[in-house]
């Protein structure tokens, strides 16, 4: 258990629909180019502009194997390849019902079922793909690719147990790279040691500690200076929700409007967590904080959170995204886009950051809280690209969990009455509805939620 296997990764944005993979597969499996024999099939959308792939995913917990009554399907524990043994297969086709990916198909020429066997480890489809849309990968490859970037942060950190700041800082700096100036205004990120101690910085890049109010303007100034001397240096801010949505808002709004070139990351833990858990404008309705206490009259915060990512989108930033450390690959993909966008203007990423200390949940539950927030639509993951003027859901949730599944993990919501829960549910649903208006309704209706 726990082994990392090879899989065929598909990058739809690189696919041009040429069909070479289909031909290559047919040739390898049958000696003809007849697509009827191909284990890989390309699905195209009606406009012909984007492509999907029907192919066995060699799943970790393969449903086809579990549903096969004949013992004809097995996941090879050495290679991870899900194998169909023709001599045991009775042709009941239950596997085709169990697989949600079109990974096992009926071959009308041979009358048998067929599926990808990865050509024993060196798949011909990958080799045939000139567009580079197919790659042979292992889960560990992905991890290694990230690990290959230099770690630009000191070992050790003084964050609270279970805080996601280390995960966030380390990965972000790895990807953004050493050619960066980092600003961390007062807040948890500076507080956990990012600015360093005793005259030593905690990062291997220049880092400074602006005021809560002027992070974006100081970075704007620094970038303009570098532009003047002809150096392309990335400006990166790690600000809390206080430093972005409240106290820091006017400088952020101004810099966004002027199109200052930077990546501004808001680490949103929904309040002033390192000064004693006070409310902020991103604290959600109903949440307990030390300034929205729970007593006989007041039952947590009485106002809804300010939707800062949407507000930033309305600033015409080059790139705006929401992210979560529970969805690291999604975050990496967004960082890549932000790095490029920040050469043209502002890239704003709003990272949902659950706080075990201030929100009262077990440190071990950090990722689970992040996951449930996304799966209940409390925190939808999306991105907005100014050049397309279009919002895209990057992790659409078809059947959202009820918000209670998220709320019940967290102590700051323990006191909620049914009415309060109902309101939070409504706010989540209304939030999604609003976002959908910004997405491309025609294509994305189904991809929306």
């Amino acid at each position, binding site marked *: *258990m726990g082994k990392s296997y090879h899989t065929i990764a*598909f990058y*739809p944005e690189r696919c041009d629909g040429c069909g070479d993979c289909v031909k290559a597969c047919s040739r390898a499996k049958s000696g003809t180019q007849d697509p009827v024999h191909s284990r890989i*099939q390309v*699905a*195209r*959308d*009606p406009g012909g502009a984007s*492509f*999907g*792939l*029907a192919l066995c995913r060699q799943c970790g*917990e393969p*449903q086809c194997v*579990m*549903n*096969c*009554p*004949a*013992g004809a399907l097995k996941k090879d524990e050495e290679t991870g390849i899900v194998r169909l043994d023709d001599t*045991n297969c*009775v*042709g*009941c*086709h*239950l596997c*085709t*019902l*169990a*697989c*949600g*990916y*079109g990974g096992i*198909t*009926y071959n*009308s020429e041979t*009358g048998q079922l067929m599926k990808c066997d990865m050509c024993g480890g060196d798949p011909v489809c990958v080799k045939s793909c000139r567009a580079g849309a197919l790659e042979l990968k292992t889960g560990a490859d992905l991890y290694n690719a990230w690990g290959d970037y230099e770690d630009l942060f000191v070992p050790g950190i003084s964050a609270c147990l279970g805080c996601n700041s280390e995960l966030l800082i380390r990965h972000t700096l790895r990807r953004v790279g050493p050619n960066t100036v980092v600003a961390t205004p007062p807040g948890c990120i500076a507080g956990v040691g990012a600015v360093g101690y005793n005259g030593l910085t905690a990062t291997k890049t220049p880092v400074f500690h602006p005021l809560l109010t002027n992070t974006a303007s100081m970075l704007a100034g620094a970038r303009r200076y570098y532009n003047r001397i002809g150096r392309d240096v990335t400006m990166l801010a790690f600000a809390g929700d206080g430093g972005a949505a409240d106290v820091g808002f006017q400088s952020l709004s101004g810099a966004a409007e002027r199109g200052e070139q930077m990546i501004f990351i808001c680490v949103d833990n929904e309040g002033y967590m390192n000064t004693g858990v006070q409310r902020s404008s991103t604290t959600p309705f109903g949440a307990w904080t030390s300034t929205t206490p729970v007593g006989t009259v007041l039952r947590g915060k009485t106002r809804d959170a300010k939707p800062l990512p949407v507000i930033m989108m309305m600033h015409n930033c080059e790139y705006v995204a929401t992210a979560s450390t529970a969805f690291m690959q999604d975050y990496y993909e967004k960082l890549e886009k932000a790095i490029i966008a920040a050469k043209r203007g502002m890239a704003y990423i709003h990272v949902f950051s659950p706080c075990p200390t201030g929100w009262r949940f077990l440190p071990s*539950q950090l990722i*689970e809280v992040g*996951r449930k927030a996304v799966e209940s639509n409390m925190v939808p993951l999306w991105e907005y690209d100014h050049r397309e003027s279009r919002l895209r859901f990057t992790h*659409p949730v*078809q*059947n959202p*969990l009820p918000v209670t599944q998220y709320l019940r993990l967290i102590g700051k919501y323990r006191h909620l009455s049914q009415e309060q829960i109902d309101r939070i549910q409504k706010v989540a649903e209304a939030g999604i509805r609003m976002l959908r208006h910004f997405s491309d*309704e*025609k294509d994305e*209706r*189904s*991809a929306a939620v």
Partner: protein
Amino acid sequence: MSRTKYLIIGSSHAGLSAAEAIRLYDQDGALTMISAEKAYPYSPTILPYVVSGKVHEDRIFLRDQAWFDKRNIRFLNGATVTGVHAEKKSVSLESGREMSYEKLLIATGAEPELPPVAGLKECPHYKLRTVDDAINIRGALKKGGSAIVLGGGLIGMHAAENMARAGLKVTVVEMLRQVLPGYFDPQAAGLIQKVFTENGVKILTGNPATNVTSAHGACAVSLRNGLDLSAHVLLVAAGVRPRISFLAGSPVGTDAGILVDERMRTSAQDIWAAGDVAQAGSFLGPEKILNGIVPDAVEQGRIAGMDMAGDPSLKPYSGGIAMNTYSFFGNRSFSVGLSLAEASEEDLEVDTIYSPAGLKYQKLVFREDRLIGASAINAALDPGVICQTIRRKVQMGEMKRGFAASPLEYGRLFMSRLWR
């Protein structure tokens, strides 16, 4: 008394799926599986193929000893549970032994049901749920002659085909007006019936058997409309009922099956149920249903296992959907969700392709812009993708027309966008 942390009764689809789910989260907790039969786990679904000789009974096993050893699972086969003592948290076995558990899963499946036909109990007949049943039927086929199959469901139709291929003269008696109810509408069932008729199988629908007698190694069956049939072999395939008799006197709440919630918990503390034995929520309605199919046994077993182990990534059961694949005389078919709805039914829209000459059928049932049922004969579709389209409640919007015209391509497109 021996003890175990997790105890699973039944080692077929539901039990195995639960065991895998438990071991994904808890590698060490003592896990014991008990099975009444003295064999490694196998699926009842394989049995028609044992009857036909397509597979030999030595080759049907889903797991071997190495699989159990590797996962540190104790497998007790040939042991039947005769009672559950929820208050003591133990079960008793036929051998008189007792075993205590912390968490118990009942995955004992179902058994053939004898329809209320006069004389049936006394008349020698065949049924099909265990390997021994299959071997018995296979033996009967060698003798040739004629056969009557009571019940035109999947099991009956499979058996009828096998018998016809073995050279028997077969008659299927189905009390409803069509075969394969629940999976196909009368039009599609008619196509299937036609194929059977062409292959020499007589299908009598719309009349239940009222009386059965046996004489001189043959059995005589009378139908309500007065028709009298006789044959050498009588196979009863008139539905199944959950195996719950050993629960008598226990606090586990039952209706037709063991009632479970969306985590497969029964009404009794620390007891779960999954698979054919369970009566769980429905995807399409508020009622609790019996849904005796492999995909549901696997899914329910997985949820039960996750909940027993305390796996936090558990997502509650979204409800059973009737679904199946079915091959007959070289043709393929499948059905997921609603198959019966007529276009006249309020707020449903039906899209049908019916081509008897080419033996092709395809019916899609929509509610607004969502698919809620699909059934097809010899159509090139991905049944699993169609199933996900239903289960994920994909709102097709303007793409609905495209989907209705080419469900294979559009289904794959939804998959690529929504759950790849």
